């Protein structure tokens, strides 16, 4: 290995990355725009960190952090001026890759016949700046759902395949975060084009940046950056490691798929149903929830019709509607459907968990229902039942 390093001096440099200041981030946004990307990143707006198209890095939420709790989200000023020291906001990248409203095709009556035309609008080429490791995993989960099966969602594929992912590792988890439990953070997993770790301390505000793809390397080469010094790398790594120890929430240490499959009749579902408003907020903010419904519309001539696809929620009564009524009429069954799917049957359907531990569902639940608390209660129930069953047998 050391011989390799001697031959190819650029290799250790690429691995160890570069360091740049705020001007580097500004240059990054400029380079991306110059390369034709629609840059989307976090910005502070309307009392929240939201994802929006960025014209310059000045729009990043420098100096804004967040306070998160079950049913509570507040912006908080930070004195270190950090841009990315804020955990998940109300939106996720699914708003861009799998939008809430998409026209799929249109149908026209022409000369007594029917002509159906797929919507071929070319998507913008997105550069997502500030993707969290948990959200990077969420994108991978949606990739599997929408393009990993027998049928590919070509619209999603078009938006996704052109998208550049710039991850920022997490050094500031929220009180509702549990990515460590789900194995999705706070360090970045695979799949990024560039990854940054933000450090803001007495030695200055700087970003340790590495590439994960050829395009990432090309962009990196255009940035005003210097080889990463060991101190910055060490501080950055320590920040991510510390974040792992500061998760606000944790899932019970159990096989969650098994736990969900084995607790379908647990009394806890009645308990949570007494609190759940079936508003569907958790599904809207979830970065992996993918369910949609369709809407067919005609114009005033009656000869032109369109098929639109809209986000849907398993909390909606109409979601399971069959002739004769909905399959899941009670809120108990609808909450159970959501949680058992997310943590359990998702494995059966798509080979992974549907939960990445971002905590959005906890924050944006108007009554503060906490998926980790519900999982723990189900786990406790199975634990309390096991000895009883054994003693009955004995």
């Amino acid at each position: 290995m050391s011989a390799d390093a001697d031959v190819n001096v650029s290799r250790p440099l690429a691995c160890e990355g570069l360091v740049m200041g705020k001007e580097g981030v500004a240059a990054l946004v400029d380079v991306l725009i110059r390369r034709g990307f629609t840059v989307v990143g976090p910005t502070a707006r309307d009392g929240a960190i939201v994802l929006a198209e960025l014209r310059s890095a000045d729009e990043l939420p420098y100096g804004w952090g967040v306070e998160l709790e079950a049913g509570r989200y507040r912006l908080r000023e930070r004195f270190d001026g950090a841009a990315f020291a804020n955990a998940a906001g109300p939106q996720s990248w699914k708003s861009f890759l799998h939008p809430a409203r998409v026209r799929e095709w249109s149908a026209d009556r022409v000369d007594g016949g029917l002509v159906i035309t797929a919507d071929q609008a070319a998507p913008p080429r997105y550069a997502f700046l500030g993707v969290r490791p948990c959200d990077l995993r969420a994108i991978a989960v949606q990739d599997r759902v929408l393009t990993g099966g027998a049928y590919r969602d070509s619209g999603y594929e078009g938006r996704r395949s052109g998208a550049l992912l710039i991850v920022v590792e997490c050094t500031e988890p929220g009180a509702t975060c549990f990515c460590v439990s789900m194995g999705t953070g706070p360090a970045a997993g695979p799949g990024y084009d560039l990854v940054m770790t933000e450090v803001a301390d007495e030695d200055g505000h700087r970003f340790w940046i590495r590439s994960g793809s050829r395009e990432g390397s090309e962009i990196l080469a255009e940035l005003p950056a210097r080889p990463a010094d060991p101190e910055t790398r060490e501080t950055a790594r320590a920040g991510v490691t510390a974040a792992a120890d500061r998760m606000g929430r944790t899932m019970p240490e159990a096989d969650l798929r098994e736990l969900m499959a084995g607790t379908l009749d647990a009394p806890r579902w009645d308990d949570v149903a007494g609190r759940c408003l079936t508003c569907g907020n958790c599904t809207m903010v979830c970065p992996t929830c993918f369910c949609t419904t369709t809407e067919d519309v005609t114009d005033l001539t009656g000869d032109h019709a369109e098929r639109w696809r809209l986000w849907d929620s398993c909390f909606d009564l109409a979601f399971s509607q069959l002739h004769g009524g909905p399959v899941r009429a009670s809120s108990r069954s609808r909450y159970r459907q959501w949680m058992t799917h997310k943590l359990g049957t998702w494995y059966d359907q798509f080979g992974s968990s549907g939960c990445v531990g971002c905590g959005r569902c906890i924050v944006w639940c108007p009554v503060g229902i906490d998926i980790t608390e519900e999982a723990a209660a189900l786990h406790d129930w199975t634990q309390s039942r096991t000895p009883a069953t054994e003693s009955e047998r004995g």
Partner: protein
Amino acid sequence: MTTVPPPLPYRVAGTSAETADTRSIELVPAGRALPPFAPGQFAMIYAFGVGEVPVSASALRGRHGGLVHTVRAVGAVSAALCRLRPGDNVGLSGPYGTGWDLEAAVGHDVLIVAGGIGLAPLRPVVHAVLDRQAAYGPLAVLVGARTPADLVYRDEIASWSGRVRVEVTVDRPAPGWRGAVGVVTALLDRLDLRPDRTCALVCGPEVMMRHTARALVSRGVVPQRVQVSLERTMHCATGHCGHCQLGPLLLCRDGPVVGYDRVAHLLLVREL
């Protein structure tokens, strides 16, 4: 892997009334044709501007050589489909889902149990078994309907006589009805069921399938040889809309036909 295609235009070649609220619609391609359907597979049928519904093929080759679907008017789209006339156009996509496993039935007695319009997805099975009668043991068809007037394919069922053992029961008899009255599972007692040689294909309301499958298993038919066709809401048929979940299954992808051994425990959970 295939990119999700928009529907293809199909023309209505003929329609026939099955009951007061149920029609069979024969569709022929207006241009490019879909791949062939297997018995038990379904299509998404698009009524212009109204919407799209999943419907299993009720015959793979109708009088005009097209695909036949039998539709009961229960909602806006199915009502629009029931109003179609010859020459009208629809959008059609498919074939989707798993069909009946007829290979598993080769060499076995074939028992079909249908509730109401549940006979529709099973009709192509009757056709297929009659086409290759030597490959299978005796074929028996048990049908349950709400009333005699709700019985579909009445003339065709009569034409099967001699080659197919047919038993019909109704929930509520009408004047003049001389057949059986009661649930379809009661008809099982009329058969000389050879459980170890029987392959059963069941389609109807979920409660009817649950009772039928349990009755068959209690008589000794192995659960793997009981196939059921399950129904849930579907908006895409490609595994992307999420509506058709039954526990771990996405029924558009893993169904609609599944072995009872895979779903027996799921059918016992209320509102799953």
